[in-house]
């Protein structure tokens, strides 16, 4: 491992990234869709020794990733996943990207086709602060987690944890694990009922498989 990569490792990792890393088996083949500047991929390569690939929409991010030594291509989750063969990865990861896709259902179907497992994380639009902002002010919510105004945000398909579960059910996807994180990034007690998770959870991470 070269020094650049080691330096990267010293940077404190995001909690949702650590959660995802926790769901990934060491040495697995991983495709990170919407990999940004490669933070998660670097973490997975360092901590899980994965054979990692990435797809990223923004070219400058792609070039950054490749210069770091990550295998990343420029591409669009909505359009380019069809090029990958069935079950070509152990995990297809969609981290904080689902809400920015044009066809979230199509993207999820592709994830479950390409990966033996899919890992999906997204901001929960059912969080109490978001509910409260809309109720109290009648304006589109702006929070620390979702800081852009409605006209500037790349997020065009928000969902709540309940919405996402309903879609999984409809798509016949099996939820192997699901974790909600509160604003402090700590996991919400598993015992808590779903409707509470949907209120307190600011973001959620799901591990899915295709039901056969």
């Amino acid at each position, binding site marked *: 491992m070269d020094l650049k990569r080691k330096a990267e490792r010293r940077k404190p990792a995001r909690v949702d990234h650590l959660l995802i890393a926790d769901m990934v088996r060491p040495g697995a083949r991983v495709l990170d869709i919407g990999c940004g500047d490669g933070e998660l991929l670097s973490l997975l390569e360092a901590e899980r020794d994965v054979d990692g690939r990435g797809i990223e929409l923004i070219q400058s991010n792609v070039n950054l990733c490749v*210069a770091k030594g990550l295998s990343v291509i420029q591409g669009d989750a909505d359009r380019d996943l069809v090029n*990958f063969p069935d079950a070509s990865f152990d995990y297809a990861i969609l981290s904080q990207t689902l809400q920015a896709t044009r066809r979230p259902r199509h993207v999820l179907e592709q994830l479950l086709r390409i990966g033996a497992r899919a890992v999906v994380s997204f901001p929960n639009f059912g969080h109490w602060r978001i509910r409260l902002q809309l109720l109290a002010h009648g304006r589109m919510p702006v929070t620390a987690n979702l800081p852009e105004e409605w006209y500037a945000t790349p997020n065009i398909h928000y969902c709540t944890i309940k919405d996402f579960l309903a879609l999984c059910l409809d798509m016949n996807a099996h939820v192997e694990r699901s974790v909600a994180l509160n604003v402090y990034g700590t996991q919400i007690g598993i015992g808590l009922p779903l409707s509470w998770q949907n209120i307190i959870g600011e973001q959620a991470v799901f591990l899915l498989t295709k039901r056969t």
Partner: protein
Amino acid sequence: MAQTTIHNSAIAHFSEAEPLRLDSGAVLAPFSIAYQTFGALNAERSNAVLVCHALTGDQHVANAHPITGKPGWWETVVGPGKPVDTNRYFVICSNIIGGCMGSTGPASLDPKTGRAYGLEFPVITIRDMVRAQARLIESLNIPDLFCVIGGSMGGMQVLEWAATYKAKVFSAVPIAAASRHSSQNIAFHEVGRQAVMADPDWRGGRYIDEGTAPRKGLAVARMAAHITYLSSKALHEKFGRKLQDREAFTFGFDADFQVESYLRHQGTAFVDRFDPNSYLYITRAMDYFDLAADHGGILANAFKGTKTRFCVVSFTSDWLYPTRESREIVQALNAVAANVSFVEIDSDKGHDAFLLHEPELFGAVSGFLGAAAARRGLPATSQLADTSA
């Protein structure tokens, strides 16, 4: 195989008994390959990088050119501490078969007739060039290559290497390339060839025997081709409509405009170092290149089962081998779940950007090679001393 030197280059000679079988069905024997090396081969023989040159390039990638005295054509990329670091990798660059800088080509003596081959030289393909390189690598006792890298026609050779010698290519970097020549690419080449052949001094390709040279024809071919290597924006920014050493039009056909003067210079400088028949043969080889057609019409089939790590690079203003052609290569690699990176670099310099100062290219190449080297277990710097001249 025997070794000699010419043009400051090592030459590997392959005898009559070691023929090169060509795609056309013809057999080339004997044949020679001129090459340069930089850095040192490690004890495991696992750090060799083959640099493939473009249409008018040669083996002088990181050393002064023996004819023009100019620096190596890729000194920005290849050298100590450069993205292709000769302190770490053993770099080989060979003149392609059909070329004119020491490897066997149409200007070489045909042993059967005792005069230059001329048009008796067999038509070659990109795969033939790569086969010849593979023979050179084999003769150097290098079992497989850490990387094959090159731009433009060099990138086509990289793709051919990855398709034909899958197990021998650990990583591959095709830059500003395409998996086949488009109709437009062929059209431009045909203009160049016709310019050469229309020159009365071409003499049906026998100009060496007759002591002439189609200099004007080759210069025109180079001028036309050179335009395709630049973007409209780059040309305009460099020259605009500025006049050359004059205040007003001459109302004649002198090089009134700077851009005319520049192209004329490019043309005449080129003919001093390039064989006109070589230009015909190499452009033909590029036109014939179609990797998908060689694999049942499906590009992905060319890469089926590949373990090679790929880094595909294109430039935004390259209209000769535009990004969409690189993207097709990437899609084919995705279809076989290959390990691929793809970088499109924002540049207004056109196709020639791969030869110029493009820091993002350097960053991508050095990052990609560094990660690949770590996977191959190559130490950060070569344990052997740099023995390059």
